[in-house]
């Protein structure tokens, strides 16, 4: 149970402001989700490099230790490492062997992912969201339902490269889905229903579905109440379950597409007064791609 915000920029001139706009939206959703918060931002990157977001303690010096070609950006207890693609296996192996207590929470070309227990405003400040730039981003404030309030339980969940998902609602068949996905090579770290939804999408994408197709299948295979906002390297998508009890509001202008659980989250966006404001229909996938 929570608040979700999402922002997908059409106008490149707004990219330096992505973080500050998203931070404003996130903070408004504090009442809905005081337990923990998280966000993913799609920032700089290219096809020859991989970015990995790590969360843990004593992260200083890791980039230097890994040496040539590895850049590290440390933000509190999260570290974003960027390195040439061909070093990925070696670096992942090193981390697993030497620093197994560090969690890898996001991997991809452009994604950076941060999440932590605490109020949204604090989480946003700790990791410097207001200064970040990017093409799109998703944020989440959490009130835990059936799993514990831990950092691991916070959203977004990322179970594939450049993928992330946030969820408002409560899935009712996620344990069965998890049992179906695990033999297919999707692994889970938490007991959380949202992680299962993320894993489901990763499975579908891995098997060749487009983002829209994967979300379309989720309407059949997932049961319960859900509003999902999903990010991929180039895409941004929203879907609500067929009963659509959990609220969802979107706003679209020539400059952006925005999502908020409540309209209040959108009031600070530029041009919101003349935006097309609408509520997504139940059981319909809305997807945008960057070109």
């Amino acid at each position, binding site marked *: 149970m929570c608040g979700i915000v999402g922002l997908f920029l059409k106008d490149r001139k707004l990219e330096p402001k992505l973080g500050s706009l998203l931070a404003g939206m996130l903070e408004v959703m504090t009442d809905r989700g005081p337990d923990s918060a998280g966000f993913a931002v799609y920032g700089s990157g290219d096809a020859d490099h991989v970015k990995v977001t790590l969360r843990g303690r004593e992260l200083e010096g890791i980039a230097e230790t890994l040496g040539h070609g590895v850049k590290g950006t440390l933000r509190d207890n999260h570290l974003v490492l960027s390195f040439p693609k061909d070093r990925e296996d070696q670096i992942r192996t090193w981390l697993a062997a030497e620093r197994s207590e560090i969690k890898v929470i996001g991997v991809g070309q452009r994604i950076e992912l941060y999440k932590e227990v605490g109020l949204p405003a604090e989480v946003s400040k700790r990791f410097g969201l207001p200064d970040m730039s990017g093409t799109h981003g998703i944020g989440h404030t959490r009130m835990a*339902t*059936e799993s514990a309030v831990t950092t691991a339980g916070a959203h977004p969940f990322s179970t594939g490269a450049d993928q992330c998902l946030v969820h*408002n609602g409560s899935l009712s068949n996620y344990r069965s889905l998890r049992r179906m996905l695990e033999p297919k090579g999707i692994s889970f770290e938490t007991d959380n229903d949202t992680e299962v939804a993320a894993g489901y999408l990763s499975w579908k994408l891995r098997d060749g579905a487009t983002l829209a197709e994967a979300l379309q299948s989720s309407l059949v295979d997932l049961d319960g109440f859900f509003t999902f906002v999903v990010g991929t390297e180039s895409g941004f998508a929203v879907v609500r379950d067929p009963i659509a009890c959990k609220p969802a509001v979107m706003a679209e202008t020539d400059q952006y597409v925005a999502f908020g659980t409540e309209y209040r989250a959108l009031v600070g966006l530029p041009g919101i007064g003349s935006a097309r404001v609408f509520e997504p229909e139940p059981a319909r996938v809305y997807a945008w791609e960057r070109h």
Partner: protein
Amino acid sequence: MDLDNIPQTLPRQSATFDPYTLAEIRRAAATGIYDIRGAGTKRALPHFDDLLFLGASISRYPLEGYREKCATDVILGTRFAKKPIHLKTPVTIAGMSFGALSAQAKEALGRGATIVGTSTTTGDGGMTSEERGHSKTLIYQYLPSRYGMNPDDLRKADAIEVVIGQGAKPGGGGMLLGQKISDRIAQMRNLPKGIDQRSACRHPDWTGPDDLEIKIEELREITDWEKPIYVKVGATRPYYDIALAVKAGADVVVLDGMQGGTAATQEVFIEHVGIPILSAIRPAVQALQDLGFHRKVQLVVSGGIRNGADVAKALALGADAVAIGTAALVALGDNDPVHEAEYRALGTTAGAYDDWQEGRDPAGITTQDPVLAARLDPVAAGRRLANYLSVLTLEAQTIARACGKSHLHNLEPEDLVALTIEAAAMARVPLAGTDWIPGRGSF
């Protein structure tokens, strides 16, 4: 071998296909409709009877009766409300609708509760003037159906109870069949007379604890933050549900186990959905403790509370108060053998009568028929309820004194042991004579 005297095998009824099951299959085959009835689960379940108190001896000393007080008062709704509820006894009357019950029965409940200084609760049909007039402390239920809901009654209430579910049918909505939709009820509920009421199982304008929080704020705004807001759930996942109710802003949480009664619902719902109250209390209290809210958000438990021992055990496990429903109706006169001839005519017998949805109650309690309802004298019935509530309170005090407690609230889980492994595991108290709590430690 003497062929005329071979011993016969004894006719043996199946435990699986027992007489009840066989009759039900035949009934289903004849009608094509599920069985609907009132009351709560009739199965034998782990319950308070499986727990015993450790009375005083050499290591603990008891209190004398009378002079050495054992206090029973409780305050509900201290978290946010300007006017919390002060009760003289922790035994309250659970929500039961006018519609399920006759107006006379609602009046009797109000009278009896007022005599002993406790509260009654409206149900899925709104507030009647009889109940508000006769009940000094009235909790007003806010249900998915919103029948009769209005701001005037909200402001007349002493507390508001947001109902998410009840123990008899967690996940189900209200049910009242056409036989009981009289003119008055049709008018209060805004329904055509004589139809079968279909009820929503979810609230129309919010779903989930994040939106419940906003709804609770609205109710506080409308009532100027004066009244405690209770949140009632049927027992299913009590640890999470109580935590979420606290996070959503509840002042009091009401937890109703599967033994809780109903006016009418499907038999399969009553018997197979929801968990016994014994298994729900400790997880609920754990949730409050983990959030640092035990005793700050009060917990009322219900579902099969019958005597002062049940009251004391519920409090010992961590509840602040209890609610009675079925027991209150029995005190008024429900299922009394004095009506046996009429029960037989209805195809049942005293103690087993549960077709309350038919509205033909000989005791005049679960009916809207004016002739039957007139049989219940609200003043006399109110007196009976008051007597019963007094006995519950005195019994609980007797037990508490024997455990050395000067206030019922000082009862604690360590005052209890269990007779069975199931009860020990569910109530998280050791098996009598051992240190063993199944799931939590060694022998």
